[in-house]
């Protein structure tokens, strides 16, 4: 496979590759992606990363407070002040994938699985966890909706 910047010389019997890093960058570079990344960085800089952090902290603290109210629910990891905007949890009697599916039906998009961290799931003897994440575009109303949907899970599986 060759093309673009990766070639130094082409002959009938073969080719000579360009020097590194160009030889690994065949074809059209990711121009739109690079411009998009710049726009995203500008957007976050305008918000202020400190404000992003404060908002995430507010949401994750509120979420953990509310999640702890739900009977049968276990949250994994440290307290709110020591974590980013993510909460992984399990629900007694309901499989993490079933929990995610029901939340989905309530318009709450979460992830279920190992979250690229299979060893720690094995360490805790868990087949998977359900993970809700909170970021700048989320609100406390949405956390309330998550909790409401979790009570529906409890109704079905509890």
């Amino acid at each position, binding site marked *: 496979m060759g093309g673009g910047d990766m070639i130094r010389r082409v002959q009938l019997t073969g080719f000579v590759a360009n020097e590194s890093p160009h030889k690994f960058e065949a074809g059209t570079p990711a121009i739109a992606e690079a411009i998009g990344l710049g726009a995203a960085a500008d957007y976050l800089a305008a918000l202020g990363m400190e404000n992003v952090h404060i908002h995430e902290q507010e949401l994750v603290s509120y979420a953990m407070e509310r999640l702890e109210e739900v009977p049968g629910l276990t949250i994994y990891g440290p307290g709110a002040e020591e974590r980013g905007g993510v909460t992984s949890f399990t629900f007694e*009697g*309901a*499989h*993490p*994938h*079933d929990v995610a*599916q*029901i939340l989905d*039906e309530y318009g709450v998009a979460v992830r279920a*699985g190992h979250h690229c961290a299979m060893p720690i799931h094995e360490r805790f003897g868990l*087949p*998977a966890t359900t993970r809700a994440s909170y970021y700048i575009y989320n609100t406390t109303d949405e956390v309330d909706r998550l909790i409401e949907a979790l009570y*529906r899970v409890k109704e*079905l*599986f509890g």
Partner: protein
Amino acid sequence: MDDLYREVIIDRYKNPHMRGELDPHDYSYHDDNPLCGDEVRIDVRVDDEDKVTEASFTGHGCAISMASADLLVESIIGKNLDEVKALSKEDILEMLGIELGPVRLKCALLSLKVLKAGVYGLESVEEELR
């Protein structure tokens, strides 16, 4: 709302009819789906005419995978092995009474995969090659 979690699925998940191990058995197979952690073993006993007299399953996983294992194992009692081998994806979906996307389809079909591997004798092949 909650279409995927029809009463029959939740009920079979909480109170399976066919859970257990058969020892001795004529056919047995075990497999898992490491990505989601679902695990199923199915044991089968047949009579002289290769008709299933008893069958059971063990394992763990989500409601869809466990309910489908329970319904599938129950459905093969009295069937002969050729009928078991002919079971299809559509038969499973009909038993569950739901439509599934590609991700959850894997949950629903794990038990069929295990059952077929069992009755086709994959276990004995694996032992032979060990």
